[in-house]
């Protein structure tokens, strides 16, 4: 009996010790090292035919509420499709993280690039270049119709100082740098269309690089000349009633030929002065914006002001590249208008009028020329000289 009892107890103990149910009492494997996935212990237990509690994966089905937010790195995009993603990138409506450092690095696609390129290569070159050719043609026709404007009765033979050396220096600093800027700007804008077919790409590359260097750096001389001439001449260029009389008489150039009265600068010269000052200031601002890319955005703010005044709807949320594109197009348009004005100014100051170039050549103009074109100024100078003053 005792032997039977001992046998039953021994069998029971052996059964209990070898029963897989004991495995459930063994502590769970540490799964932090695998991120919750199965461990080596799990694999070994399975090989030993031991039961493995796989609830660690059977119940790990994910919870949408645990997803990282859209704004987090690698965050889910929720119900946003690929095409919508790309559309957001295209319209710069995303806030991307990028390893690229520097201005405008967070703009992945700039949608306005091609319209800008087509505008620059098409209408800007076509209409801008056409306007320059038109003003030249107009002046040639004017020259043959009107002829050179001569000094009535011929020169007096005596001269009067028209401009001091510092005035002429400021004028030629402005004029010389403007001509250099105009030529190098035209090479930059039109070279690809007109010069590469003639010079070839290699020669044009050298010319384009040189033009770019000169354009970027001689711009400072232009700005200095602009400031100098503004300071020296602004007081003489305030519009007054005489200007209206001068304009009605066509400046004595068109019509009767009678020279209307004028002080140091007549209405025509004042128009040139303010054209150069206003457009020169504007072209300088857009030039600085181009010279220091992405550092001086100004079109969004400008459009905002215009919209508030005129009620227009110009875009005020511009990508950095769009700012540069607007600056580039504006720079070209303003420069073309200035070139047209200056070509006419060069004409009337040289071949178009006898005795005019001397004013900026050596500063001394014929007294009769001065009396015919700037009679009130001559009277002022003579009055001052009579009192021991100077012009």
């Amino acid at each position, binding site marked *: 009996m005792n032997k039977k009892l001992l046998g039953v107890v021994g069998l029971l103990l052996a059964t209990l010790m070898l029963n897989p149910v004991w495995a459930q009492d063994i502590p769970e494997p540490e799964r932090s090292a695998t991120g919750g996935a199965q461990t080596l212990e799990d694999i070994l237990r399975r090989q030993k035919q031991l039961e493995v509690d796989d609830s660690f994966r059977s119940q790990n089905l994910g919870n949408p509420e645990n997803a990282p937010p859209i704004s987090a790195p690698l965050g889910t995009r929720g119900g946003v499709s690929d095409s919508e993603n790309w559309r957001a990138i295209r319209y710069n409506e995303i806030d991307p993280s990028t390893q690229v450092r520097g201005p405008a690095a967070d703009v992945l696609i700039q949608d306005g690039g091609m319209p800008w390129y087509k505008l620059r290569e098409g209408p800007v070159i076509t209409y801008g270049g056409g306007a320059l050719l038109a003003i030249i043609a107009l002046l040639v026709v004017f020259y043959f119709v009107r002829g050179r404007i001569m000094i009535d009765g011929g020169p007096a033979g005596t001269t009067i100082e028209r401009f001091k050396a510092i005035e002429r220096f400021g004028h030629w*600093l402005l004029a*010389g740098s403007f001509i250099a800027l105009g030529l190098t700007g035209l090479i930059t804008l039109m070279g690809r269309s007109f010069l590469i077919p003639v010079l070839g790409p290699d020669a044009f590359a050298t010319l384009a690089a040189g033009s770019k260097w000169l354009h970027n750096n001689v711009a400072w001389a232009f700005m200095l000349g602009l400031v100098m001439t503004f300071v020296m001449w602004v007081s003489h260029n305030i519009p007054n009633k005489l200007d209206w009389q001068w304009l009605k008489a066509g400046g004595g150039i068109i019509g009767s030929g009678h020279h209307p009265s004028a002080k140091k600068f007549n209405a025509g010269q004042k128009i040139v002065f303010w054209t150069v000052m206003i457009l020169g200031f504007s072209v300088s601002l857009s030039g600085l914006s181009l*010279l220091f890319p992405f550092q001086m955005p100004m079109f969004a703010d400008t459009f905002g002001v215009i919209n508030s005044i005129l009620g227009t709807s110009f875009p005020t949320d511009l990508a950095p590249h769009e700012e540069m594109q607007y600056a580039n197009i504006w720079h070209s348009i303003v420069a073309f208008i200035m070139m047209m004005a200056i070509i006419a100014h060069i004409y009337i100051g040289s071949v178009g009028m006898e005795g005019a170039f001397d004013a900026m050549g050596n500063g001394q103009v014929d007294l009769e020329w001065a009396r015919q074109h700037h009679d009130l100024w001559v009277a002022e100078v003579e009055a001052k000289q009579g009192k021991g003053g100077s012009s």
Partner: protein
Amino acid sequence: MKVMISAFVAALVIAFAAPPVLNQFGWSSAEQTSTESVRLD
């Protein structure tokens, strides 16, 4: 004419002086651009 020539020379002097002067103030436009990036096509 001397004044005209001297003004032209001054413009060139300013052009050559501008890059190093701007660099002194950390205002280099050259850092933002590349002289080798002229497209020819």
